[in-house]
């Protein structure tokens, strides 16, 4: 057996040496956990669609980079009118869709009108509702009129669901995505893998990779051997769980822990007694120990948060100290609410490790102040209908992965059932504020209101566990949006 291995290793080495003598590799196989249901980012909310297609296959007017900053994409520049209502985008020329048709202002108008149409199924439709008119001034100029100033408009145009699709090809994008990006779809073996190849006619800087395959690896236990055997060379976010240490100690791999936009929170049904009392929510916030929850639910990798805001984003305020872990204080809050003997409640946990593991820790922590939680495991479909749509819950744990989503606390009918006029006014002001410094100040205030008022107990920011071959460069460290942008990824020697 030993001899075998030596011979095989020698053969593999000589083969590797022979190939590397010519040129660096230009193919890459990435592992993803969930298969996208289809490949049209304008017609489905599944994050996996964006992971595969964003920046690779489809591009928007603007794009969001690794640091969450807005960059130019199909629009090379833009001008904003003084009242903040009219955006005039100057488009790149010479851009072609993968089917060979030329990209022009008409496609932008088509895409934006389609997203805001009455029968639109765009997962971010509410964002497009602010657009009142889109005019193609000439083939390289588009004028977008809004119903009022929108502070976040350029950012929104860089989101996954805002990519520009072709007038003639949009209907087939689910199966045969036709974009303008540096990669195009080669084939999709359903259930198995999606292969992209380099687009030779790309208008911008061409990609370094010739071929990129997204292979679906649904099982955490299978991810490690797939990496070790070399079948898969990168996981943008590895379902590593307990096996991470094994990969971390292996010099062949880089392990890069980054930030996501996933605020993992203990959501509270704010209208349901006794959670409608501030003191009860304060008791919950004081009773939980974030350190223990992070250790159990995210292998100690998540960053603690004290409000609904990612520590990686501009304007973040550290509010983890507003309600420090303090059992005595928590009991006082309960007493204040007239519940010194505690109470019973339920917690519905979706089928993700952070929720199921975190839920058990929270259950035992709340027991210390006399709050008895009954754990009810649910699957996603049940969670969406019972918790999110019908608001039939007391507590739940979930990660809100949408970027810049602090405004969800002001949405009427949202499942938190939280209604704070002061907060709502603040968000209204934020929506119409264009000045960046002022925006950051308002965002800071919004974070503080949530931290003190506890419409949810803020636990931690979900980490992005990037694991890839040490010779691979250019993978995203953070996930300001869930995208596996391969435009700058390359092999080095």
């Amino acid at each position, binding site marked *: 057996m030993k001899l075998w291995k030596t011979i095989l290793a020698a053969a593999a080495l000589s083969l590797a040496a022979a190939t590397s003598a010519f040129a660096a590799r230009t193919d890459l196989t990435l592992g993803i956990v969930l298969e996208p249901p289809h490949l049209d980012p304008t017609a489905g*909310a599944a994050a996996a669609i964006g992971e595969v297609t964003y920046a690779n296959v489809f591009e928007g007017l603007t794009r969001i980079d690794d640091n969450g900053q807005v960059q130019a994409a199909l629009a090379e520049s833009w001008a904003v009118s003084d009242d903040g209502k009219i955006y005039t985008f100057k488009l790149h020329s010479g851009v072609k869709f993968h089917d060979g048709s030329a990209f022009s202002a008409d496609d932008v108008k088509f895409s934006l009108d389609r997203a805001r149409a009455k029968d639109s199924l765009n997962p971010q439709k509410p964002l497009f509702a602010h657009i009142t008119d889109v005019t193609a001034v000439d083939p390289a100029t588009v004028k977008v009129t809004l119903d009022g100033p929108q502070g976040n408009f350029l950012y929104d145009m860089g989101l996954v669901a805002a990519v520009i699709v072709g007038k003639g090809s949009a209907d087939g994008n689910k199966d045969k995505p036709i974009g303008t990006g540096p990669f195009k779809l080669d084939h999709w073996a*359903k259930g*198995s893998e999606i292969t992209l190849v380099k687009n030779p006619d790309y208008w911008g800087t061409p990609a370094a990779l010739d071929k990129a395959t997204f292979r679906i690896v649904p099982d955490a236990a299978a991810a490690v051997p797939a990496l070790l*055997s070399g079948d898969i060379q990168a996981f943008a976010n590895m379902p590593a769980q307990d096996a991470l240490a094994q990969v971390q100690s292996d010099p062949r791999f880089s392990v890069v822990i980054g930030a996501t936009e996933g605020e993992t929170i203990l959501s509270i049904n704010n209208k349901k007694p006794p959670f409608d009392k501030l003191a009860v929510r304060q008791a919950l916030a004081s009773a939980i120990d974030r350190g223990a929850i992070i250790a159990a639910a995210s292998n100690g990798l998540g960053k603690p948060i004290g409000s609904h805001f990612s520590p990686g984003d501009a304007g973040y305020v550290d509010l983890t100290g507003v309600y420090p872990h303090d059992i005595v204080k928590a009991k006082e809050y309960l007493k204040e609410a007239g519940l010194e003997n505690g109470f019973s409640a339920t917690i519905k946990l979706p089928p993700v490790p952070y929720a199921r593991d975190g839920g058990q820790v929270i259950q035992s922590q709340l027991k210390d102040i006399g709050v008895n939680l009954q754990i009810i495991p649910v699957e996603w479909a049940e969670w969406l*209908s019972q918790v999110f749509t019908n608001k039939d819950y007391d507590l739940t744990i979930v990660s809100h992965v949408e970027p810049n989503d602090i405004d969800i606390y002001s949405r009427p009918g949202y499942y938190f059932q939280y209604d704070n006029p002061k907060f709502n006014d603040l968000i209204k002001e934020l929506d119409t504020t264009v000045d960046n410094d002022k925006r950051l100040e308002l965002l800071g205030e919004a974070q503080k209101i949530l931290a003190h008022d506890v419409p949810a107990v803020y636990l931690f920011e979900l980490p992005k566990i990037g694991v890839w071959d040490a010779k691979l460069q250019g993978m995203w460290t953070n996930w300001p949006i869930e995208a596996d942008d391969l435009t700058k990824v390359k092999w080095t020697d």
Partner: protein
Amino acid sequence: MTAYLLKRLIIAALTLVLASMVVFAVMEILPGDPARLMLGLNASADQIEVLRNQMGLNAPLILRYLHWAGGLLSLDFGRSYTYSVPVIDLVRERVAVSLPLALIALALSTLIAIPVGVFSASRQGRAGDTLAMGAAQLGVAVPNFWFALMLIYLFAVWLRLVPAGGFPGWNAGIWVALKSLILPAVALALPQAAILGRVARSALIEVLNEDYIRTARAKGLPYHAVLWRHALRNAMIPVLTILGLQFAFLLAGTIIIENVFYLPGLGRLIFQAITQRDLIVVESIVMLLVAAVIVINLLVDFSYAIVDPRLRGRQ
């Protein structure tokens, strides 16, 4: 024989109708809205209504059942909500993985189990028997995902003889495709072989105690001839029964192995479809499987007649 066949066919048809009602009802009772799952947290209520109408989810239950069941009769299995392609296309892609895998695993398990069963039975109570049956006991007890992972670490990570998982598709070449099915087939076959081997052994031991075996020996036939020609054939009925059950299981019940090897098989498709509430996919595939199990059972019944001539004249 014809009357028997006819009776079996009528029972099969009734089973299918009953199964279709149960499957449809169960999927409808499951909480969860496919439209909401597809559109996500930011979608508005009217968007969800639009999609529900598009998918035909707002029609009355009975109408939807009749529409679906009527489609099945004309072999139209409907369209997947999530993938928006015909269900039959999805099934065809997945069967191209699951059926060869099931057949290889079944062949492997038979090839291992029958000789081991014969070996053990003919050495009943001796060291060889104890050893073989001990191994079989182990085979039944070891969880197959653990066994699969051990195989992966040994043959894919350490020796690098086969890929750690995935299926490149038959277009990539028969050998390349087969290579990726070897480990999953072994992982599936060994526990099955362990069960089958034990069944074969006990069936054979029972037959070996029959008077006619002693007669055959007494008339001077050599032991191995008696064992293989007279005894084994008579012991085949329980073995075939188990084989039929195992084949039905291998077609769709292999979700764990499919996950460990990330194979795009039928089991994973059903699992995925259930979590995404792709009702039509689940309903149609389960019906196909019900039909497959019924056909397999019929085949098993007929094969009894082949191994045992006495059954041919009956009924």
